[in-house]
Every structure is written in structure tokens, then in C-alpha cells.
């Protein structure tokens, strides 16, 4: 036993030394780049962009980000978006943003790479069922016409209570899955009441941006890692959307209609 004790102790000490030296960190240096968000809506729209930057993990952030040059271009027309506060840049007037028009975005700022992106606006569309003011049940389905040129739909089912609280379910639907048809059974746990259903048909850029984001918590609550991007030269998105919404009353009772509503305005697509 005595013969092996010194070598064992030395070996154990060497092992401990090597073990404690094994916590590694990568040597790559973090380089800041521009962070851009710009979404155009089909139809007349006053374009707006958020321009900020990425921060190293040891830096404090700021929402004041002036000094960037933000240009939109479509065919031979171009527009400069001006800094209007914090990291917001906007054009003061509405532009004619027609379906299938292609817009180009260019953002520059000293010390950063130039950010470039482009988007083609999806076609407008309409909700077939329910119609505004309808009473529906969770046995019904939401149906809508196709928005050509879109990759998918960002849907929202929002209820405002008399106390002012809001409730919102957001679902991202790819064109190749449920497009144009969505059973509403998932609203079964939710209370009866007036709801606003809003659908945003998204171009490929914005669909990918939302899809990669994995959800959203109001007020910056949800945080996830990953840097999906649909622009070049920085992080961010330049996309476009077409909107459509309808306000309905959700009732769980399978007998359609609700007090005070004429039976004629109750509809169902079951």
C-alpha cells in the first residue's frame, strides 16, 4: 500500500489540476451589427421602421438610436424614413402599397455594415366565415380566401372583457397546412363573449421571422436565443402583410343566437 501511495497522490493532484483548468470560453470577439424591423401592409400605408443594434452581453442597451439613414425604394421611386424618436424611423405620408409590388430597404449608419432587404407584398384577401356580427360556436370553422403571394397567416383571436382585460390566442398557420380553414374547437376553454378575429397574410420574409421567433410575450417578456434574419448585413426583417379582421360573438351553447340578437344574424358553417 505504501509503495503506491505517492504515485497515486501525484496522479490525483495532476488530475485535479487538469480538471479545474477545463472550463473554456470561446475566443471569438463580439461585433455589433444593425438590427432592423420594417413591415409594410398592402393598401395605403405610412411605413415605419425600428433601427437599433446588437449589444455585447456585457453592454447596457439603449432605445435611443438616431443617425441611421433608412431608404425605401419601389421601381423608380424612393422615400427616406426620418428619425422620429427612440429607435423609430417613419415616413410621414401614406404610400400606395399595392399587392405584388416589390419594395427595397436600405439602412446605413457609420460604423456598421449596410442592411439590405426586399419584400413583395401579398395579395389582399377576405374572411368568408364568420361575417361581422355573427354568433358562432366552437363547432364552427373560420374560413377565408387565399392571399396569393403569402407564405402563411398569422391569426389572432382576441377577447376584451367588460373589465378591460384582454385575452389573445395567436396562431401561425402555413399555407400548406390549414390555409383557408381553421376549426375553432381550441376556443372551447375560453369564455363566451365578443371576439375580434384578425388575420395577417404574411410574405415569406415575415412568416419566417415570426416562425423562427417562437412566440411573443407582450412588453418584451419572452426571451429566446437564436438570430434568424431575413435581411443581409445585420439582424432583422423587412417583410409585408395583408390584413383582414372580423368581430363576432362566441357562444358555447349549441343553440345559436344570444339574447338580444335576432335569429337571422346567427350563422354557422357546420
Amino acid at each position, binding site marked *: 500500500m505504501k509503495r503506491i501511495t505517492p504515485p497515486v497522490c501525484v496522479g490525483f493532484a495532476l488530475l485535479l489540476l487538469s*480538471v479545474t483548468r477545463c472550463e473554456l470560453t470561446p475566443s471569438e470577439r*463580439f461585433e455589433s451589427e444593425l438590427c432592423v424591423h420594417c413591415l409594410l401592409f398592402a393598401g395605403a400605408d405610412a411605413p415605419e421602421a425600428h433601427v437599433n443594434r446588437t449589444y455585447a452581453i456585457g453592454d*447596457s*442597451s439603449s432605445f435611443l438610436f438616431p443617425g441611421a439613414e433608412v431608404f425605401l425604394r419601389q421601381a423608380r421611386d424612393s422615400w427616406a424614413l426620418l428619425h422620429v424618436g427612440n429607435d423609430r424611423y417613419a415616413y410621414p405620408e401614406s404610400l400606395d402599397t399595392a399587392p405584388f409590388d416589390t419594395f427595397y430597404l436600405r439602412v446605413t449608419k457609420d460604423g456598421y455594415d449596410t442592411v439590405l432587404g426586399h419584400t413583395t407584398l401579398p395579395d389582399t384577401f377576405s374572411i368568408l366565415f364568420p361575417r361581422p356580427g355573427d354568433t358562432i360556436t366552437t363547432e364552427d370553422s373560420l374560413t377565408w380566401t387565399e392571399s396569393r403571394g403569402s407564405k402563411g397567416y398569422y391569426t389572432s383571436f382576441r377577447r376584451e372583457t367588460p373589465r378591460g382585460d384582454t385575452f389573445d390566442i395567436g396562431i401561425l398557420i402555413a399555407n400548406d397546412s390549414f390555409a383557408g380553414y381553421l376549426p375553432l*374547437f381550441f376556443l372551447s376553454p375560453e369564455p363566451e363573449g365578443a371576439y375580434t378575429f*384578425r388575420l395577417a397574410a404574411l410574405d415569406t420574409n415575415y412568416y419566417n421571422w415570426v416562425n423562427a421567433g417562437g412566440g411573443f410575450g407582450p412588453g*418584451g417578456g419572452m*426571451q429566446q436565443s437564436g*438570430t434568424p434574419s431575413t435581411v443581409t448585413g445585420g439582424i432583422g426583417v423587412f417583410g409585408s402583410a395583408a390584413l383582414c379582421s372580423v368581430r363576432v360573438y362566441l357562444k*358555447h351553447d349549441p343553440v345559436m343566437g344570444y339574447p338580444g340578437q335576432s335569429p337571422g344574424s346567427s350563422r354557422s358553417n357546420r
Partner: protein
Amino acid sequence: MNPATRALFLLAAILAGITSARPGAVNGYVRDLSSGEPLAYANVYLEGTSIGAASNDRGYYYISNVPAGEYELVVSFIGFGTARRRVEVGSGVTTTADVDLDPGAVKVDEVVVSAERARFEREVELSVTRLDTRQLLTIPKVGGEMDLFRAIQMLPGVIATSDFSNRLYIRGGSPDQNLVLLDGITVYNPSHLFGMYSPFITEAISDATLLAGGFPAEYGGRLSSVLDITTREGNSKNYTGHGSLSMLAGEALVEGPIPNGSFLLAGRRTWLPDALLKAFGAEGLGYYFYDLMGKANYELNHDIRLTVAGLGAEDVLGFWDAEDPDGLDVRLAWGNRGLSAQADLILSPLLYCEATAAWSNFFSNFRVAFSETDTARMTTDLTDLTLKTDLTWYAHSHHTLALGADLRVTSTSTTTRFDTISFADQDTLWPLSAYIDDKWEVVPDRFFVKPGLRYNWYSNGNRHELEPRLGLKYKPGKNTSLNASAGRYTQPMVTLNSTDALFSIYDMWVPVPDARNTPSALHYIAGVEHWLTGDAIVEVEGWYKDYANLLEPRYGDFATPADSLLTADGYSWGCDLMLRKTEGWVTGWVGYSYMWTRRRIGEEVYHPHYDRRHNLNVVANFPGLFWGVDVSTNFTLGTGLPYAGDIGYYPRYEYVPGENETRYSWRFIQGPRDAFRYPVYHRLDAGLSRTWTLGWSEITAFLDVTNVYDARNVLLYHWEAEDGDIPERQQYDMMPILPTIGLRVRF
């Protein structure tokens, strides 16, 4: 001489050896006198000669090439008294001598050979560790429950990535590269409680053998390792059993004789999670798991033995609207079921046959009921039917051939149903295999060669895969052997879920898509074994694994569709050292591993999250250390595991249709994949147990403490950002100090 002629010549020589020589042979079974259970790897020899054998895992032995005469047959096994029997061997005749060893007849000064020593003397094996019930029960329990996989995690070459996971990362392989067999049943998802425990009841296990690499041609279908678990056969002499209660679960086991055989039945069910939830008023939430294991065997006659074994294990998680019986009700149940029937046949003294039919099923059932009529349901099912035959042919005194075939059909299905809409997806795989191994004693007791070949046909993609294997063993001295092995391995099924997940409910298995190549690995292993004393052995092994055509899930995704799996290759290499002591005032082992693991997906080269450079495990058990108290301890020390650390952050804007406006959240930018490492991991567990004999029963009280000194090992880091501030890193720790008590009653 061309290879074909040479092979024919060899075969002719073997056959000539069989037919021309007229020595006799001795065969039989070695069993435990008190319970009738077979004793695997007992040492059997003829006194005064160098002729001997080790019993196989069914207790059968065969000693060939015995000159006619009268001999003293000596059978020894550690923990049992040595048995001697006079046998008369006739010319060309096989003499049968079954031997029962008495566990109560151990003499203090007797030199007894352990199973490990018997394997060392007779087998050509590398990277093999066998743990029996006795060893498993002495290891400190985590959360009051002994777990086989937690014991395996303490072996060299095996990595645990968290205190909350019993998944096995063996020599740079991911958990889905391990073949887990229970009495011939392939267990696809051996985990409970999101990976905390395995579904095997330790008291019902006879032994578990881990083949960490270079495994023989008998095994296939996985790239990294094999864990072969055998359920105890039960006591064929007396009715016995035990009941135990830990802070997590209750357990019961009964065993006893049946005509010409025995049975064993064991069950376990958790009670703590439900009790805790109720105690804290968490209404509308419930969880439990249960396990059932059983085995029965029937000896038709001396040459035919039939065995039936089964496993049933299930986790059930539910949450529901406690105030509304017709409201939301979510149930998730998943589990393993399996049944095997095995016939052990002595077709002739030279030919031992194991024929197995096995059914294995993994199921999951996820049901969400929004109301009485609105439901969504997703079910998955994996069913595996196997017919397998293994023959051991004691062809010649220097050649023992193992050959067999494995016919299997594996089907997977997933059904999703939302209200009236349903989707179904199913797939079937036919892996058919045949193998042959020859253990060739080139120079008696000194130099062994074990060439083998396995042929697989996989129906997915109509693939034919040849897997050559080779094992070498050279014994320069009585107590030392030099070993080497090499082999090719392929795997026809893979899992879709991320191996990076901290918690895992279960793995989703699918056949390798037709358009992809079969994942494969080459193993190269070399090592030295040396017996320091009669009960202590030191083993050193260097190993290298070369992986090709691996199918990896997309990084960060919970699960990846089969056709989107990424193709990867890579390697792992390392060195394992193990010092093991099986008897005496202290038993256990010291295991140390040094490992490197790399993967490459396209241009991205990374260390996977289980690439631990140094890993040290010390398992020490002190039977009767003071006042009759058995003391056991585990200590683990390991360098930090890789992770993808955050290096930056930015405000991420997104349009929210519900509010019809744009909102932001802080998002973090990850550095290179797995480029950071967590701090050093270390943990000490300890257990105390004391047994009292009270008339017809034995009562054992035990106290186990997990993480004795409350080490704060890092589970993960999480960054939080506030507007205008520097982000703060939050640390989430693994298991804190956790003392548990329990009681076991044997009768």
C-alpha cells in the same frame, strides 16, 4: 492457398478434430442451492489438470477434450462454498454433473474465483462490466430509489449530463445508440419521471452487463453499446419476498417454486408526487409511474428449460380543471410493455441453444379534452416482434462457435386527431440478421482469437450491411492479459428528438429514411487487464470510434421530422481506467475516463453537449463498518460539459395581430455551438443501512443522502435583460442535498 480453400481446410480440420479424437466431456448446470437460480460465470475445472470452463449466463458449462478417467470436479463461485464431485469420464462419452453451490458454506481461508475472474480466464471480452443485484443494492440511492442506470453512470466511459437524467452517453455515443435488452426484449425508452429513473426494479434484476464497445457479432442494431439485463428466475426452493417503502415509491416482490420451476413477480408504484401535489394544494395536477416485472421458468427435463419474462411500465401525467368536471382535461400516458418466451435447449452436449420470441411495445397517449365533445388526441406506438436463435457449439477443445439469426419486424405509428380531423403516419422496418463468432484458443490459456461476422438486411432502402468483428486476447502471465478488438456497427433506427434537451419524456424512434445511408461506426479498442490480488483488478483501455452517416436532429429544435434530419459524422476517442475490488472490507471501484468527442455537420464542427474531458467516479462500499451498519459512498468529479453560451442581445420587434401593433422583446445571440463549458461538476452521495433479523423476517432501514455537501452544480445559465441595463446571468442548479429514508422487509 486462396481464402476459400483455407476456410474449407479449417472447417475440415475442426470436423476432423471432432470425429477423430475420442476423449470424453463433462457438462451440466451450476445453480444456487438455496434458490435454485443459475450461477453465471462460475469456475468449473477438473482438479489436477488445466482443463476447465466457465458456466454461461444460464449456468450451463461444457468441458471438452477430457481424457477418459476419474476426476475431482471442482466448482467455485464467490460468495458460495466450493463444491467437489467425483466424476468418471468415459472415452467419447459426455458425463453430466449438475452442481448446486451452498451460499452458507463459505470457508474463510478458501480461495474462491469470482465471476469476473472466471470471465478473465475464459472469455475474449473488452469493455465489459457486469453488475449483479448484490452490487447494485449497495450503491447509494437517489431520491430513495436504487436505479440501474444511475449505477451504470458511475462506470468509466459513461457520462451523465445532469442529476435529473439517467440517460447514458457511452464513449461519445448518444443515448439512442445504446441497445437495452431485458431478457431479450428491446426496451426503446427506458426512463421514468422525465428521465430520473429507469423502469427496472433493482431487486428483480439478476445481473446487468454493459458492453461499452467492441461488442461481439451476437449483438447488433446499435452503434455504441449494449446493456443486457437479466431478470432473476425466482427461488425454486422456498416462497420468499420483500416489501419496501422509500420516500418516493413502494415496492413489493414475491418469488417461489412452481412444479418443475419457479416464478418471480415484482411491482413498484410512486406515491410521493401525488402526495406532494395534494399537500401543497395543487388541485388539478397529478403524476405517478409504476413498474411490473415478472419471470417464470419451467424445466421440462434436464435438457429443455422454458422461460417467460415480462415488463410493464407506465408514466401518467394529468392536469384538469378541478372546478369544472366537464372542463379542460389533459392526460399524457406513456410506457413500455414487453414479453419474451425463451427456450434453453441442450440439443446435444456440444450444442446449446437459446431460442427467443419477444414482443416489445412503447406507447404514448396524449389526450386533451376541452369539453365533453371537443378533444384532441395524439398517440404513438412502436412495436417490435423478434424471433432469435443463438447456438453455442462447443466444436472443439479450442473452438467454441456462437451462431444465430435474428428475425425482427418493427413498426412505428403516430396518429393525431383534432376533433373530426385525423392524421396518421406509420412505417415498418424489417431488420434481419445472422451472425457467427468463433472463440479460438490458439495457444491454450495464453492466446485467444475471436473473429466474427454479422450480416444485416434492413428493409428501409433495401440495405445489406456486413459487420466484421475481431477480438484478441493474449495472456503473458497468469494475472495479466492484453486485449484488442475492432468491429463495424450499423443502426437502422434513429430518434427524432433533440439530445440537448435538459428533460426528456421519451424518444421518438423512426426507421432511417430510405434515401439516407445507414448510420455506422467503427470501433477500435486495446487494453490491459491485471489482477492485483484475488479480488482486485485494474483495467486500462484506449478506444477510438469513427462515426459516419449519423442522423442528427436540428440544433435547438425539440424534434426534427425524419426527412429533415441532418447528416453528421465524427469521432470519439479516449482512455478508461478502472480499479475494481469485488470482495473484502471495502468493495467498489475507481473509474476514470479521458475523452474527446467531435461531430461535424457540413462545415460546422462542434463538441456535443456530452463531451466531458475528464470523469472520475469512486464507488466504495464498507459492509458492517460500525455497529453492523453498511456504509456506501459515491463520488463523481467531472470537467464541465459544453453548452452554447449567449454572447450578445438585441431588441426583437414583431407585429402582434391581436393588438394590431408592433412589440419588442429582448433576444439573445448564441455563440458557437457548445463552445462554452460549465464549471467542474462534483457530487458525493452516501448511504447507511442496517439490517435486523426478527424471527421469520429481516428488516433493513436505510438512509441515503444525495449531494451530501450540497454542491451547486450548474444545470443551465439563463440571461435576463431589462431595458437600459446590463443583462444578468441567472444560474439554475442541479439537485441540492436530498436526504431520504426507507424501510425494507424480507420474508
